[in-house]
């Protein structure tokens, strides 16, 4: 028996995929601008600069729209973990990733319209969307208007801390993206997570498995 529930509204899915596309463009162009030396460069420097600038502005505007949508729709509460269940929730997720999934166990938490994310997702998404993204955008804006950065800092060009911060956060978000895509394969089936992000519907096959959900 399969239970279906509508989890992801249209605005959220649209934002998610446009955001994903922009992130990929930013990663590829950002890497091309940072590593300019390879024999075969990924994207030519001047093209990479334009792609990075346009995508950066687009993702910043989209981020502001996300902040408004997320607050206005009440979706923001999905990002806030229940502190009481924090440790047990994390343990459950870790046990599933480390062991349960190899035994064919269903994910310990199945998304519902009321609670869409497990604790691990809540913490990660909260850090990504409300800590890393604002820092990435602020340092990106400073990079976009370098004349506004302090001329000197610690005896060096004032852009240095901004540039290093932008690089570090950009890299961490790239690693998040890899992990996020992979975690998408760890739903009730390998493709259910991706299907949900396209159709908005979550299909729960858990009752068909031999395992009881804890």
């Amino acid at each position: 028996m399969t239970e279906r529930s509508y989890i992801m509204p249209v605005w959220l899915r649209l934002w998610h995929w446009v955001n994903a596309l922009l992130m990929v463009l930013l990663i590829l162009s950002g890497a091309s601008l940072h590593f300019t030396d390879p024999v075969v460069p990924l994207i030519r420097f001047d093209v990479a600069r334009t792609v990075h600038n346009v995508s950066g502005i687009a993702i910043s505007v989209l981020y502001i729209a996300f902040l408004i949508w997320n607050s206005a729709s009440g979706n923001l509460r999905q990002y806030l973990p229940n502190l009481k269940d924090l440790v047990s929730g994390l343990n459950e997720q870790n046990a599933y990733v480390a062991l349960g999934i190899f035994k064919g166990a269903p994910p310990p938490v199945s998304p519902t319209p009321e609670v869409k994310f497990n604790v691990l997702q809540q913490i990660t998404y909260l850090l990504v969307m409300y800590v890393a993204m604002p820092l990435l955008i602020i340092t990106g804006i400073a990079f976009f208007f370098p004349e506004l950065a302090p001329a000197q800092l610690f005896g060096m060009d004032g852009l240095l801390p901004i540039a290093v911060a932008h690089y570090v956060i950009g890299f961490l978000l790239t690693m998040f993206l890899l992990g996020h895509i992979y975690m998408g394969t760890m739903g009730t089936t390998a493709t259910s997570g991706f299907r949900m992000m396209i159709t908005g519907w979550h299909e729960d096959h858990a009752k068909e498995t031999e395992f009881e959900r804890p």
Partner: protein
Amino acid sequence: MVVWATIGLVFLTTAAVAQIERKPIAPEDLQKIQDSNAKCLECHSEASFDALDRPNVDKEKLRAHLVDPSVYEDSNHGRVECLACHVKGFKETPHVEKDKQQINWCDECHTRKFLRIEMQFDESVHAKDGIKDKFTCSTCHDPHVFQHEMYLSSPRKAVQQDNTMCLQCHDSEERFALMTKEARPDLAAKHEWLPNNPLHWAAVRCVECHTPAPKKVLSHEIVNAEKAEKNCVACHSADSTLRVRLYRHLVKEERNEVGFINSVILNEAYVIGATRNLYLDKAFGIVAALVIGGISLHSLLRIISGLWRRRRND
């Protein structure tokens, strides 16, 4: 944390690059030069000009021949006697009219350098028919002012000085018209393709791009827009040409202990692609490899365990 740790490390270990000192000169020799020059500056200095009241001195003519003593002393020729170049006829006051044009030209002292520079100049855009004869060394390099970049306290000052030399004609209709009848190119429009124009112009010299690219080192062969360097990566890379151009005198002082390549440039400007930190790049490379490796291993184990479960259920 990583960001601040990196910055802290850089702060602790990278010192500002020191200015190169001029060769020492014996105090008595210096005094002799200064005394001799002081006599000239009694008339030829802006400070003494207003109060000057000497018979046989045409102040209107003199106004065009004033020198700022402090600027002169800081210049490359600051320890050279005025009379070393302004020879015959300048010892007497008023100067002997017929000898006034007899000035020792640059090649009198800079003979070897002059030969090399002349060959480069002959290929320059400034050596085109019609304007070549209007150019001397001092058209660009005012010998009373010019300082070699190695003696300036920072590359930024070299940029300011050297770009002013170009702009004195290229940013002035009046001066440009004195050299050629051609229309003066609109600098802003010509450089529209160059991102963050004001930043580039404050951080690099016109000649960084307007000298032949393949030769890498700086030359007196100034090239036009068509031949000028337009490849961003020429500067924005680990092997940045800035190392053999604007920063060539400082490269020897460079320190790489904290992993920043081209750290000598970092003292002045963050140049994307050229001033990156190798330690950070390597650390991120390892982390990325671990993440991708971890995901691959996890995927493989999932596939194997899935196949094993299926076989068991069959």
